[in-house]
């Protein structure tokens, strides 16, 4: 067993378990903290997959900024915990879980049916190169400069919008 395999099993396991914990904890603060762990271990997986830049961005943007924001709003609103997870219309929730389980099985089945691994053999040299900041930056500012600008406008609209909605009174 190589270190790569062990690490990816560890990170993947943490990802799966924390994802489940996020949706089963009653207290939203605990959910949010498990989501941080989930994002951090995802960053670990990205490192194994040779996506260095995205791994760092994942830690800074997701686990850092976005989740701090979530925790901040939870603290601000201090919502009561949902008392009983399955109390309200339990049959609907059980139905939901069954449906999603079917979807999940379907997705796995189809991934195996497609068998992408037969065609895709990881080329380490190429993939190491693909994940560098230099490579991403070059693509971002040449071929994909238009989406980059669109993302800028998206962030502008979101900033203005969040201010309008959340501010109590405008002077």
């Amino acid at each position, binding site marked *: 067993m*190589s270190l*790569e395999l062990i690490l*990816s099993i560890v990170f*993947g396991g943490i990802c*799966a378990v924390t*994802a489940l914990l*996020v*949706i089963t904890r009653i207290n*939203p603060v605990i959910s*949010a903290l498990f989501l941080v762990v*989930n994002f951090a271990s*995802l960053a670990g*997986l990205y490192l*194994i*997959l*040779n*996506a260095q830049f*995205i791994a760092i961005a*994942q830690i800074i*943007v*997701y686990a850092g900024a*976005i989740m701090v*924001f*979530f925790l901040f*709003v*939870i603290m*601000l*609103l201090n*919502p009561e915990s*949902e008392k009983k*997870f399955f109390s*309200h219309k339990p049959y609907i*929730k059980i139905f*939901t*879980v069954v449906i*999603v389980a079917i*979807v*999940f099985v379907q997705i796995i089945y189809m*991934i195996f049916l497609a068998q*992408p*691994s037969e065609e*895709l*053999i*990881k080329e380490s040299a190429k*993939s190491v190169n*693909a994940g560098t900041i230099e*490579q991403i930056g070059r*693509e*971002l500012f040449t071929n*994909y400069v238009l989406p980059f600008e669109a*993302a800028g406008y*998206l*962030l502008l*609209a*979101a*900033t203005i919008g*969040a*201010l309008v*909605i*959340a501010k109590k009174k405008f002077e």
Partner: protein
Amino acid sequence: MQIPIEYYLILSAFMFSVGVVGVLTRRNAIVVFMCVELMLNSANLTLITYSSYLGDTVGQLFVFFVMAVAAAEAAVGLAIIIAIFRNKLTINIDEINILKW
């Protein structure tokens, strides 16, 4: 040593399904948003996996954009939650029902 690509794809499918279950079953609007983030992250994992196995940068670029969108969406969503909390003093989706769901 080669880790089969299915390993990552199954993990991402699992996270996606968990996210969908969370959105459908949880009643706290903030937790619902966290589950949406989970769904976005599972898609990110798929993109990064394929990008790495194909040796192609575009997938990672896409993830970078998705992160920007996720941040914007979280900001807007949480602002709306704050606005609705001011009006109704609750963020439980079951109690927010002037309009029929």
